[in-house]
């Protein structure tokens, strides 16, 4: 393994932060901060900021802090102090340069993974505070360029990747046609009213990884599922607007998503292997709209595969031989408690499973989620270097394959294993399931 950098070598220039901050005035900053603090936060933020006793227990929970040689400024409490803490203390009277730095801290040095909240003796949720900083920075127009572009895509197309409506349908039909080479009567049923479930994915799948839709179609057809996908907007469950603090666009997209399912009269929504999208549909986006729980049951792919295997609807021809380890995505493990189901699924599919440590809800974050990887190329080196601890953790397993049912984890750890020369490949559950399952001719 390569040695991790001890510091960020040079200042990162991001056009979104630079241009956005240059447009600010101190009067506008003060007005916006106080509007958000008084109008959009309440007892929750106050209790967090008033309760923290600076015990430092959160620090050891943070992969960024651990990866940067325990520099206190990268601890959760340190990041709070450098951002929302100062905003509150100075009653919003901070400079444009401060906002630029606060935006970079909140958007690229915290994955809102909530591991620190689990170790805080008071349960202080630093992720909530970092999200509040992002909301303020969004209101001030100072958000990293690439994730802002993604939020714009959500606003225009209701998907994350500027996928046009015809491209979406055409991709599904193309995957259906290709999959018929393998399974002659396979279907990807579009707009099938009254199906048991709507399958929803994130936009990178039709854009860059259509093989995942292909694999899902093979799995669902083999298992005899009654399923559908919408031909219209609402098919994408992802949500970078949630992470930029553009909560109105977040909500608009979640409305599209749930109303697509409602229009199709499905009984539930099964979503692909994505973590942040689960957070958006199961926790944040639905609640902004006043749905205290998803109005149509949401099932993550882990739960769905678990059910298929338990019910014997998918049979395993021969278990996967290579040694595998499991990375637990924050949003479906700390956020939903699916870690034991995940292990059941992996053990059903794989012969040699090596746990990384710590694991389950204590696992370290991938450092890609929470919108961090979506901040794009300017921050890539910093992002990778600030997760040396993850590289050490997965390298120590000696496993050949890392399985993680989350797109952000997947992409983030591809970068980590490449940068730190870890000899490992990364797969989704469906990659393995597709490979080892019994298939119909």
């Amino acid at each position, binding site marked *: 393994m390569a040695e991790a950098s001890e510091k960020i070598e040079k200042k990162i220039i991001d056009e979104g932060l630079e241009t956005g901050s240059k447009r600010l005035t101190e009067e506008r900053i003060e007005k916006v901060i106080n509007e958000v603090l008084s109008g959009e936060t309440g007892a929750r933020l106050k209790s967090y900021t008033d309760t923290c006793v600076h015990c430092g227990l959160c620090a050891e929970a943070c992969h960024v802090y651990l990866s940067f040689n325990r520099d206190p400024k990268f601890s959760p409490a340190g990041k709070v102090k450098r951002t929302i803490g100062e905003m509150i203390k100075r009653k919003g009277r901070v400079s444009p340069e401060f906002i630029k730095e606060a935006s970079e801290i909140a958007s690229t040095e915290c994955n809102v993974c909530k591991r620190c909240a689990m170790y805080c003796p008071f349960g202080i949720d630093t992720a909530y505070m970092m999200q509040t900083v992002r909301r303020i920075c969004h209101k001030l127009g100072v958000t990293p360029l690439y994730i802002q572009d993604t939020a714009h895509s959500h606003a225009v197309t209701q998907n994350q990747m500027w996928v046009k*409506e015809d491209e979406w349908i055409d991709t599904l039909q193309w995957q259906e046609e290709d999959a018929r080479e393998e399974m002659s009567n396979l279907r990807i049923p579009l707009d099938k009213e009254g199906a048991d479930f709507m399958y929803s994915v994130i936009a990178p799948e039709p854009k860059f990884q259509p093989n995942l839709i292909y694999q899902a179609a093979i799995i669902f057809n083999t298992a005899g599922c009654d399923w559908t996908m919408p*031909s219209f907007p609402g098919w994408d469950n992802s949500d970078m607007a949630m992470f930029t603090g553009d909560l109105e666009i977040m909500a608009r997209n979640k409305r599209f998503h749930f109303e697509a399912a409602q229009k199709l009269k499905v009984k539930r929504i099964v979503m692909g292997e994505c973590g942040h999208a689960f957070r958006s549909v199961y926790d944040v986006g639905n609640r902004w709209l006043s749905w205290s729980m998803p109005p149509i049951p949401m099932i993550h792919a882990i739960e769905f595969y678990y059910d298929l295997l338990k019910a014997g609807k998918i049979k395993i021809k021969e278990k996967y031989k290579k040694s595998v380890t499991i990375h637990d995505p924050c949003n479906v493990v700390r956020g939903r408690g699916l870690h034991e189901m995940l292990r059941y699924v992996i053990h059903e599919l794989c012969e040699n499973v090596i746990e990384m440590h710590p694991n389950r809800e204590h696992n370290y974050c991938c450092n890609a989620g929470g919108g961090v990887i979506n901040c794009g190329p300017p921050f890539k080196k910093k992002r990778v270097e600030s997760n040396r601890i993850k590289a050490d953790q997965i390298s120590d397993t000696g496993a050949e394959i890392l399985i993680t049912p989350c797109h952000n984890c997947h992409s983030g750890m591809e970068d980590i294993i490449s940068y730190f020369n870890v000899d490992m490949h990364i797969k989704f559950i469906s990659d393995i399931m597709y490979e080892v399952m019994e298939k119909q001719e």
Partner: protein
Amino acid sequence: MTNSANWDWGINDKLVADTNEWKDSYNWVEEFYTSPDGEKIAAVVNMDEAEFNVCVNGSAWEIDTPFEKAWALKFSQDNRLTAIISADMAWTVAVDGQLWENTFDYVWDKRFSDDGKTIAVAVQSDGKYGMSVNDVPWEDMYSFITCMALSPDGKMTSAVVQTVDLAQAEVFKFQEGCYTVAPNGKAWSRNFVNAWNMAFSPDGTKVAAEVRHNLYDYTIAVNGEPWDQIFGCVWCPIFHHKKGTVIAPVRTAGAWTMVEDGTVIWDRKFTQIWHQMVSPDGSKLAAVVAPSYGNWTIAVDGKPWDTTFGEMVSDAVFSPDSNRIAAVATENEKYTVVVDGNAWDQTFDMAWKPVFSPDSQYVASKVEKDGKYFIAVNGKLWGKAFDNAWEPAFSPDGSRLLCRTIEDGKYYRRVVPVSDIVS
């Protein structure tokens, strides 16, 4: 509106087709669709690799060459059968087996006017996007299109279009406004950061849409002119069909209320408001609302029903006499129909949009329970269970109900006295 007066209401049950026989004729038979009058049942069928056709009442469309692909099968309200098809590597619309003359690189989002006489689709050729209406494409095409709409009378189409080219990650150019609305393909002269979800005035002279001036300021624009009032968020506007005013839910200071031409008309706020609708006589305005977090119901002129539901209220509809409202409500993953704030006694695994009888006395709905489909009227289930069914329709005099059902693969058109179900 569906004209059911000339449908055959004088019979009881009619076996229209035995779809079991279809399965022997084709590799596979896709989802079934039935005509509004119940006289036809159809499905996309596969004959061989990349060879598709449409089968209606057991007979395939007479076409020279099988389609490479057929999807989006649907009957129009005037009982014509339409599909989006690919033939000779080009896409178009097929209506009762006849193809439109114009072909495109892709076709999707098929819509019908209320009477079914107008068919509109979104089209793309050579990377340019627009709409085609009854086989007449828009003159102006755009680099991007979304939120396509067709007016209920079929006289107007509209979509959100992109009028300024954008390269990757040009976020500040985006925020200057690159999108607008194009009624009948002619873009408004003014751009917005975003525009969504349009409504058409009943006289066909106006189009209203949700717009965003920047990343924060939302309002409604009518014929390209935004209201002066700015809101934190807005949802889809509607036109009042009697007064011609524009009505929309808006969010201010973290709560939702209703505005008409920009002025607040409801004296209370909600945690959510959407799907507003004006009664047929124009006297009432109702909407799906959340009076408090996580509780859903219907509000009429700003006054919510006492009964609330924890998950969802949808598919609301006014009665013809404007005095009643029915909707679908969900609680604990079970569906029911709620009428004037009173939920039916039974719950279901799914319930479809309710329909009122012409005299507003009866409410009928298709419901699903334990994998079987039923027809229910005023909360009472008709005793027959079906493998599949479609939404029921009342006869013009309200005494009979048209039920379209499949049992053991056999499709029946059934005309049932309402009294048989409710008694």
